[in-house]
């Protein structure tokens, strides 16, 4: 399935809600173990973060090489 992206110029309120939540779930919170990694396989929300969740995108780039291909599409 080809990758699809939401409009980066004018994200909707729903997009923003998901992005803000995804940013928190993937980048914040307690990190208690060295085993913790950001798994990106199939987590298509990260693609929505290109324009807003910059840290998530950085993590995506860092981990993309090891991620399995998945269906990446917008919400």
């Amino acid at each position, binding site marked *: 399935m080809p990758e699809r992206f939401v409009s980066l110029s004018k994200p909707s309120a729903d997009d*923003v809600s998901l992005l803000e939540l995804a940013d*928190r779930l993937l980048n914040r919170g*307690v*990190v208690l173990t*060295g085993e913790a990694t950001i798994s990106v396989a199939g987590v298509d929300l990260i693609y929505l973060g290109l324009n807003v969740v*910059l840290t998530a995108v950085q993590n995506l780039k860092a981990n993309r090489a090891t991620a*399995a291909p998945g269906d990446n599409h917008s919400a």
Partner: protein
Amino acid sequence: MPLLLQAITTPPDAADLLDGLRGGRLISVMHADLVGWATELPHDDAAFNREDLLEHHRLISNIDRRVAACLPARFPTWFTDTEALSARLRSQKDQLLAQLDQVRGCCELAVTALWTVADEAVEAAPTPGTPGRRYLMERRVAIAGSDSRRARAMRLADELEQTIGAELVRAQRQVCPSATVALSSALLVRRSDSQQLLSRLQRTDQDVRILVNGPWPPYTFADVRSD
């Protein structure tokens, strides 16, 4: 069985059962006044998707409603077994208890301010020589926004925090994190204040639209790092 950690909390008010992620068994590991909540999940099933991410959020929210203080875990955080989780609770007990005290009775509101008009500085930005240099300059301006926009976003952040006043426990802000976003703030407030603050903060100004999401568990303020 590997464990996917959801949260570290104070002991729950009631001992009812919750399902874990993907219907797995949710277990709680106790040490002193700490409880670690985690789902038993085979590592082989760990190709996570968006639903898992949202389910993780719903699960933490359910746990959060049952406790006085909750520290959500970054997704995904694995432990090999209950003993490994218990050992981590023991070794970081003081740090975790101190952090729980800071978020006790609190929740997080996410405030996002979106620009409603184009940035004049970006529109009028000069385009110097080579394509590479032009691209980099445009990217820099687009991401950072103009100085005037940054100043406006800073004022807006100050204003929003003043609007909350004494009800604001803590705040973290990102000014102009992208070309379309003026401000992304995480506000730690009392749970009892959250609903009325939601409506008080949400509005549209001449140049920005302010969106408020939450109340959420205090993700941004669960700032515990090992090692």
